[in-house]
């Protein structure tokens, strides 16, 4: 199976929703898709193309939009596939992949915690690394890191 074959197959299934294929070394390629068909696309990839293993879910903040990327592994073909979808900055929402790949649970929580992408249908979308009640999504480009100044620490012990 090569990238052309796969993207053609997917394009016939989801007409107009597969936005393009980029080459990426060491993988089958990077397929860009429309987030509207996320759940159906994931299910089709798992059931029809044997991508049984979701390796990685991550998100990038490109200032004008946010990108969610998925890395899949096909155990039969021994190949990686990268999926990516662009989400608008004002409403970064995409359907969760947890119902299809349980392994996405922690990854999606991490993406929500650090980049602020919401996954609809996630069973337990809470922060994972930062404490509950933290106000920011630190991996956004608008969040600047800086040398700490002299700070006065007040720690509430509970």
């Amino acid at each position, binding site marked *: 199976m090569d990238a052309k074959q796969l993207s053609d197959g997917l394009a016939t299934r989801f007409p107009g929703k597969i936005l393009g294929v980029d080459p990426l070394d060491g993988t089958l390629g990077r397929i860009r898709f429309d987030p509207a068909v996320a759940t159906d696309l994931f299910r089709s990839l798992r059931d029809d193309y044997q991508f049984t293993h979701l390796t990685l879910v991550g998100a990038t903040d490109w200032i004008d939009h946010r990108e969610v990327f998925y890395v899949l592994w096909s155990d039969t073909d021994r190949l990686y596939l990268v999926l990516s979808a662009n989400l608008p900055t004002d409403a970064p929402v995409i359907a969760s992949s947890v119902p299809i790949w349980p392994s996405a649970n922690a990854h999606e929580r991490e993406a929500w915690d650090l980049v602020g992408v919401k996954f609809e249908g996630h069973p337990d979308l809470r922060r994972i*690394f*930062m*404490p509950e009640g933290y106000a*920011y999504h*630190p991996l956004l480009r608008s*969040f600047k*890191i*800086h*040398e*700490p100044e002299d*700070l006065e*620490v007040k*720690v*509430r*012990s*509970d």
Partner: protein
Amino acid sequence: MSGQAPEVPRPAVRPQTDASPAGDLPLAVIGQPGVPFVEIETLRAREFIPAAKEALSSLLKEQAQGKLIRPVFNWAGRNSLFPLHWGLACCAIEFAAAFGARWDAERFGVVPRSSPRQCDLLIVNGTVTWKVAHKLIALYEQMPEPKWAIAMGNCATGGGPFRTAYSVVPGVDKLIPVDVYIAGCPPRPENMLDGILRLEQLIKERGE
């Protein structure tokens, strides 16, 4: 010498003294079946008491100046530092290696304990994040006095390579009082042992 015949050889409890026993005082002769006889030459009690009084008062004076008992406890305290057995990050691996066969921190009486109640020493071995900060303070406060803290490695000293990060406490001395800082990222086990020995020196100098 009493009239009753001893059944066994006498134990050598007779004080070796040249002076004859005081004539006006009777010898104490006490006996009971099954127990060997002893005969006692009396102590010169009236001479003993003033000397004892003097010695006692000088001891009390020394004790009041903190010269008698306190050095003993100081010696004990500095030679038996029990660190808390908890690992934060990279330095925790070197902390563990220091208790391994090659460095063997137990040579100096350093034995890690898991419960903060039984510890004297909190070795902050790694990066402290804000999420864990109040737990660190709670652990430190659970330790009974007297207690000491060592900031091991650059992260605990000043944030280290993660100083600019949003989630890292830039130096654990913002949270708890620290006695000894150990540089290194991570410090080698020798450095950790050196830090502990320096803490011992510090305790000796402060006379705590």
